[in-house]
């Protein structure tokens, strides 16, 4: 595991062993609820969560005097405790993303640090140990193996992250420090949220109740109600049209159609007749395959393929209304 100095723990507090850190510093959780001197930290922690829900990044002054350093770490750790006590996933999700973006700033600065070798090495080590990215620096380029790059870039849906839109040569991808760190945002986010989710939830701590209640109220604001139009996306319409005309729909298209309709709650009996016009229609085979996809006669319930996948199978017939979706089943969903 990484050997962290105070400086790093402030920047990347999620790397610290929370309970151990507190006890090493001679504190117990209960103290934070009662000790008036520590109250400031709890307030900071609440603030840290609130800011994250606004999509902003908690800014901390790392260069502050040494005495303030534990405050930074404590406020993170207490925020985690508050989130556990509140138990609202939406808050945890927002908090871990904001914290990921906060540490991203430090990581980027440290990676590009040519003056302080220790900082640079630590940043390179974090990238390697936590995210399995081996970075070679050459001039302004951050050079990483294509296979390392791909494992992270597949999380992005923007076209600029596609391998074909990257500068590559002889097995390596060339990135800027900003892009290198941006590449792992999701993983830092996931790392933080996994850590929060897997932490034990303590008993309610005296003095925390009020904060927990206010956070619960805050979370309610983020409950999303959606309406869905019953209109099918163009890819599905196209597939149905092809079948209606009695033309051949490739296997991948049939797979898409069936998994889409299953996702919309239709049953095998409702879907099967759609395939009747297919040139190679065989009732037995159709039912067998539909039952297999639905998870009835197999252990897996197959999911509808992503838009990206459908594009590569030439099954995508994108229209403006598709904007912002990454899977056909999201088509027509609107927040109210």
């Amino acid at each position: 595991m990484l050997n962290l100095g105070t400086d790093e723990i402030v920047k990347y507090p999620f790397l610290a062993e929370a309970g151990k850190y507190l006890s090493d510093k001679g504190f117990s959780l209960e103290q934070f609820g009662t000790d008036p001197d520590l109250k400031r930290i709890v307030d900071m922690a609440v603030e840290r969560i609130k800011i994250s829900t606004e999509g902003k990044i908690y800014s901390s002054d790392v260069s502050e005097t040494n005495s303030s350093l534990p405050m930074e770490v404590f406020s993170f750790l207490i925020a985690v405790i508050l989130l556990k006590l509140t138990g609202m996933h939406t808050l945890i999700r927002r908090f871990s993303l904001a914290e990921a973006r906060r540490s991203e700033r430090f990581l980027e600065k440290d990676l590009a640090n040519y003056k302080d070798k220790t900082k640079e090495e630590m940043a390179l080590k974090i990238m390697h140990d936590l995210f399995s990215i081996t970075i070679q620096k050459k001039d302004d380029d951050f050079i990483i193996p294509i296979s390392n790059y791909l494992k992270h870039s597949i999380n992005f849906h923007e076209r600029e992250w596609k391998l074909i839109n990257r500068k590559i040569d002889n097995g390596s991808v060339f990135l800027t420090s900003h892009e290198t760190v941006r590449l792992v945002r999701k993983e830092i986010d996931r790392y933080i949220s996994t850590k929060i989710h897997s932490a034990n939830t303590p008993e309610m701590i005296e003095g925390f109740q009020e904060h927990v209640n206010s956070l619960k109220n805050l979370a309610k604001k983020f409950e999303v109600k959606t309406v869905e139009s019953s209109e099918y996306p163009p890819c599905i319409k196209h597939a149905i049209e092809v079948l209606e005309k009695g033309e051949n729909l490739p296997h991948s298209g049939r797979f898409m159609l069936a998994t889409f309709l299953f996702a919309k709650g239709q049953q095998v009996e409702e879907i099967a007749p759609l395939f009747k016009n297919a040139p190679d229609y065989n009732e037995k085979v159709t039912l067998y395959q539909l039952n297999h996809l639905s998870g009835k006669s197999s252990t897996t319930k197959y999911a509808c393929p992503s838009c990206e996948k459908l594009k590569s199978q030439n099954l995508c017939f994108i229209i403006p209304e598709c904007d912002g979706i990454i899977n056909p089943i999201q088509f027509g969903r609107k927040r109210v």
Partner: protein
Amino acid sequence: MNDKDIELLEDSFKKFYFDHFNLIHVPENPNQREFGFQKFNSGMNRHISLKTDKELHLLLMQKVPSDVYVSNACYSFPNLPMNEKDWKNAELIFDIDAKDLDVKNRDQHSCVKCTECNEIAILQSSCPSCQSSKLSKITLSCSDCITEAKDQVRRLNEILIDDFGVEPNNIQVFFSGNEGFHIYVNNSEFQSVGAKERAEIADHIMFRGIIPETFGFKKFNSEKILLPDFNEPSWRGRASKVLYGSKSMRSKISKKIISSGYSAFQKQLEAVKEQIGVRIDPNVTVDIHRIFRLPGSINSKSGLAKIFVNDITKFNPYVDACFIDSEDTEVIANCPIEFSLKNKKFGPYKQERISVPKYAAVYMICKGVASCT
């Protein structure tokens, strides 16, 4: 296919396997691979585990399969159902098939067979006998197709080596046994990557999803655009060659591209995709649980063998992959087009009883244009 045809094919295949055990081996880490086979007129048997060449040869002799397959993936438990196999890694494989290449003269080597009444005729849109539109296309030996497929293989190799840093000696090319090539990348860093990563690799190779920004194009502020040069790595260099034609034209054409604007350039890139991207079948590369035809085995679509290609420029599948013997064999052939095997021309035949070398008889039966009875 009738029983007599199957008997002839099974006898021929069995004899080939018996005489050519030296060509047919289990791959590396055989105990981690999934094997599968098919018999004529029958479904697929998968999830089979074989550990040695001997076990494989025994299967060939006992089952006399029409086709034999093995996974590119290694699993902890290859003979368990798919989701219990525990996938470990898989060689990166690319499939280039002549049928996907729109080769100009391909139709001259193709005929149609009616799926309703089995009538065979030269290429047309409906059956001359029953007017049904349900026709399957049959393509016989076509050297243009092979030449084009070879060119795609050459370009794929170039990208694998230049862009992906693959060692040339880790690339193995196999003739698929019908009319294409399988390109294997062994011992690479891509062995352990999953399906989504492989889809990205496939898109890169096929020149799919490129955006004008990659060539330095900007949506706004077109004054500062500098398009790439010939000798830049990867697609920037390769696409430049196609876009400008020659070095001397760079400045002139690049000005024209810039003045035509962003969306025109986007369309232009889309238009050259087929021309400059390598036309692999992406589904094959992306599927990490697939079983592939076993090198050295016969392809029942043709009676030719899937074999390792040492020197692709000299390779002629219709000679080098044709292993069935030349014993005189009688068949009734209904083959409206000519084809060539082992440098000998055959056909056309109009529903006639003929005596031909066994390799030609097997080829025609496999293609569905001849029968024993």
